[in-house]
């Protein structure tokens, strides 16, 4: 992947800026889905938490993270076997000098800031109904200051993954058009770490029998969130193609077509799979399939053909409901938003697709090394950081808070105060 420092034409710059202003719709859509897939007694905490984690992560990224993520030489480099390994940026802390940077550098900052904002919603959604607001903010700070900037620099800032092409003849280096690795796969791995550390919701996995179904409280939010994400994703993928692939504006139509095709194929596949398995299509699972298709397109919409996008979406759509079921029923992983599958697994699948169907030799190997880095290096690092943080600031709410609901316990009010609160049989 080409480093970020390529100057833009005026048209590309204007287009990228305009598209980036639409990208927050993806964030809004994911926030709506997070709220809808949680319980009614945690709805306000979920939506307020979305804002809190976004704000914290963005500030952490601006003050600290951008210094590591920026691809402005000279970077931190060490040499091994005669090859440079660029592992972190050496930008200025506290955004010093950003206003005097070239416009395209400011644009990359804006793109990465939105990327951080989207990525931190992923673990927050997985920790729904038991993750405390201060813990969510702490996770967001760590993500914005350290975790995201490292991966973003390696891929987008001319880091060692981006240089796999020039140093080891592996295609054009690790390819990630709009954040499948640094946003979705990394966010999904963070979600897995959060779920492991916080544990399942109370009553989710009884000692005997199957796990307890805890469906989302407002499927209308979830499905409306799906529609909103489409607009944001189109903008995101096209802006990513302009920024990181140096694509001409004329190539963006195919990127948009690929994005829609991938999501549509995934939805059709999930609809069919759930229809066959349960007799009726499952709305929340279809929403997960749609989002998995969009996440898959994040990696490959700018580099593959429309038929390949359909194939990638179909596979994502078939695998998503099966994987969500496997995680819940067989592996005892309580992930209310399905983010580990939808963002983590679909992100990794998209990265693989970009390698399999890329025209350059060696590209698939570069993508495999990117996947290996996320799984083998970032997941243990994320878990270690979160585990240490949990020792200082407990992630999980106390049992009484979980019984009351996060809204009452943390905020003192409900999302739906006129509703009658029924006695909860599980706490007798």
């Amino acid at each position: 992947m080409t480093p970020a420092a390529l100057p833009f034409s005026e048209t590309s710059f204007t287009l990228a800026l305009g598209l980036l202003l639409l990208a927050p719709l993806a964030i809004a859509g994911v926030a709506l889905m997070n709220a809808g897939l949680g319980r009614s007694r945690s709805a306000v905490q979920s939506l307020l938490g979305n804002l809190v984690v976004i704000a914290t992560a963005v500030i952490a990224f601006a003050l600290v993270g951008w210094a590591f993520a920026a691809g402005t030489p000279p970077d931190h480099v060490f040499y091994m076997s005669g090859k440079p390994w660029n592992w972190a940026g050496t930008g200025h802390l506290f955004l010093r000098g950003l206003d005097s940077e070239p416009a395209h550098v400011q644009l990359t900052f804006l793109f990465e800031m939105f990327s951080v904002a989207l990525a931190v919603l992923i673990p927050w959604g997985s920790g729904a109904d038991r993750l405390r607001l201060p813990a969510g903010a702490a996770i967001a700070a760590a993500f914005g200051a350290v975790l995201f900037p490292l991966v973003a620099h390696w891929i987008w800032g001319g880091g060692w993954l981006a240089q796999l092409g020039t140093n080891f003849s592996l295609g054009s280096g690790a390819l990630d058009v709009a954040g499948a690795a640094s946003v979705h796969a990394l966010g999904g791995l963070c979600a897995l770490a959060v779920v492991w550390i916080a544990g399942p919701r109370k009553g989710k996995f009884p000692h005997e029998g199957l796990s307890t179904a805890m469906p989302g409280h407002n499927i209308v939010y979830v499905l409306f969130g799906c529609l909103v994400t489409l607009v944001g994703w189109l903008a995101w993928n096209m802006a990513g193609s302009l920024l990181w692939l140096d694509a001409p504006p004329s190539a963006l139509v195919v990127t948009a077509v690929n994005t829609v095709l991938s999501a549509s194929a995934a939805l059709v596949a999930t609809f069919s799979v759930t229809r066959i398995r349960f007799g009726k299509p499952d709305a929340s699972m279809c929403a997960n399939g749609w989002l998995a298709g969009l996440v898959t397109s994040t990696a490959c919409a700018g580099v593959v053909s429309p038929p390949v996008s359909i194939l990638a979406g179909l596979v994502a759509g078939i695998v998503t409901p099966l994987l969500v079921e496997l995680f819940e029923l067989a592996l005892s992983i309580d992930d209310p938003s399905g983010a580990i599958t939808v963002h983590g697994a679909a992100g990794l699948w998209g990265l693989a697709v970009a390698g399999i169907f890329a025209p350059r030799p060696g590209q698939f190997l570069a993508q495999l090394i990117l996947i290996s880095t996320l799984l083998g290096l970032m997941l243990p690092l994320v878990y270690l950081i979160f585990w240490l943080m949990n020792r200082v600031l407990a992630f999980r709410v106390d049992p009484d808070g979980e019984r009351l609901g996060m809204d009452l316990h943390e905020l003192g009010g409900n999302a739906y105060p006129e509703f009658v609160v029924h006695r909860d049989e599980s706490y007798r």
Partner: protein
Amino acid sequence: MRFAGLLVMPAGFFLSIAAILLFSGSAQRAAFVLCGLAVEAMGLVVAIRGHMQLIRNPQRQDFDPGISGSANQ
């Protein structure tokens, strides 16, 4: 057990890195990188099994899993 699995995973990553440093042929590199991914997958399986043990054995867990009945919305 979860920590054991997570400690195994970086070994897979270093195997992948060693592949591109030690070999120049694409077949050898691919084989080593795939081995690295397999090691990571094994580590992930061990970590997930550790998680499942914690869920099923409430005495050993550092979170409160909830072990009774169903929960309402």
